[in-house]
């Protein structure tokens, strides 16, 4: 048995992000000073340098910015998972995340498709995945 690589904690920038995943909440940041949307979560706004960042809740709806079907992988967990869809998803709140699109038909997933958040639960964290929007 192999398992998905999981975030390494403690990691001060992202511990609150990962704690929220156990409640199936996908969080992102928005700067209270300049309004910039920030992802991955971090201590400083890369737009204005402010440390005043609000950890906001995403609705989990987005659009595929790019995608590939991975058919070969050297890492045992992902090798067993091939073929799978690896994608960049633009969330409606204005941030982009790399993730996996869970589907039974990998060849039908296309750029610009709408997708919706789904979760894969592990003991300490849940991993945000996406599936085609219904």
């Amino acid at each position, binding site marked *: 048995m192999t398992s998905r690589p999981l*975030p*390494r*904690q403690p*990691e001060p920038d*992202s511990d609150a992000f990962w704690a929220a995943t156990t409640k199936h909440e996908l969080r992102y940041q928005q700067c209270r000073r300049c309004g910039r949307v920030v992802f*991955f979560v971090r201590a400083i706004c890369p737009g204005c340098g402010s440390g005043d960042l609000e950890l906001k809740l995403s609705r989990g709806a987005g659009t595929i910015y*790019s995608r590939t079907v991975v058919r070969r992988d050297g890492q045992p967990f992902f090798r067993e998972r091939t073929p799978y869809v*690896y994608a960049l998803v633009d969330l409606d709140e204005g941030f982009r995340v790399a993730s*996996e699109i869970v589907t039974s038909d990998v060849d039908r997933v296309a*750029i610009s498709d709408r997708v919706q958040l789904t979760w894969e639960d592990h003991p300490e964290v849940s991993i945000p995945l996406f599936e085609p929007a219904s």
Partner: protein
Amino acid sequence: MTGLRPRAAIAGIYEYPYRNNSSYGPLAIKAMSAVRALEDAGLTLADVDALYDAGEAAAHPGLEVAEYLGLDPDVLGTTDVGGSSFELFAADACRAIAAGEARVALLTYAETPRSGRVAIPPMAGTGRGQPSSADNIEAPFGLNIVANYALVAARHAYQYGTTPEQLAEIAVTTRAHAQRNPMAIAGLKDIGLKHTGEISVADVLNSRMIADPLHMLDCCLVTDGGGAVVIVAEDLAASLPKPPAWILGTGMAVSYQGPDRDITVSAAAKSGPRAFQRAGVTPADIDVAMLYDSFTITVLMLLEDLGFCAKGEGGSYVEGGRLRFDQPGGPALNTDGGGLSSNHPGMRGLFLLIEAARQLRGESTAQVANARLAVAHGNGVLLGTRHVGGTVILGRERP
């Protein structure tokens, strides 16, 4: 440093020939290559006063290499930004020479992933050392290197209609160039390729799909390799055994993720214009383009970003063999065979400088007639997520 006209030149080069040979480890290959490249420049180890090292062969970048070779450098430069490290080193060496702090700069490189049977290591600290917020959100979805570049290729196809056939043209051209390079062909045999001859677009499309739209033959090789480059000050360049390859201009830029980032544009879109402006030349003047070919899509993007064609037109630009060494209408691409068909140990940037210098000397196995200007562009780390671009413009005539 804008406006600085560094007067420095590549004076010595050496490429370690073997692609699958466990007789020597990386540190030994770096050291042997250093001696040969210095001989090529008519110099010795005692002449080296600046050492540049990406740290791929020992624990402390620069230190163990200096000790192994018995060097006493005044200047030590130890950037590790993957495959573009050596283009940044060339720029650093120019600055050190222009500042009067160095006269003979030595760059060495070696890795042996093939004979050592080690995978290309995980990218950029992922899974190693201190965890980071970025690593934590990326690692759960795999860190498949081909997939990272495939995301770029897929988006490029979506925005501009770039086809797999057009990407394949790049692999076809570099394999044709490899045919003329005995080191490349011996290497292809040594790593076990059954077919080492020319390939067609159909061969690329019929090779196994790794991550759509990238096939096996869209991907670089994994080989052993190493080499060294010696960069010297103007006064030394005047009395070399071989013609100097003058460094006319350099530029670098970083690129990373963000919500508004267009992943079909690489750091070369910034580093390229900086280097061309400093060199006082334009892409149309370039005879030889040594562009980091980790994957076919990397080359296509770099051609656009460096200004050889407009953004989005890379696909049609590479058609019809335009980039072959003996074809007019565009620069000769990766005339040694490139990472796609000669060697790719992991950080190929040094070989871009070596082959560019060979061309300006008239020593390439796919020699461009009367080659006067070359560009070497390294793209280090990962095209799709975060990378560093380093551009170096080289010329046969003294600036």
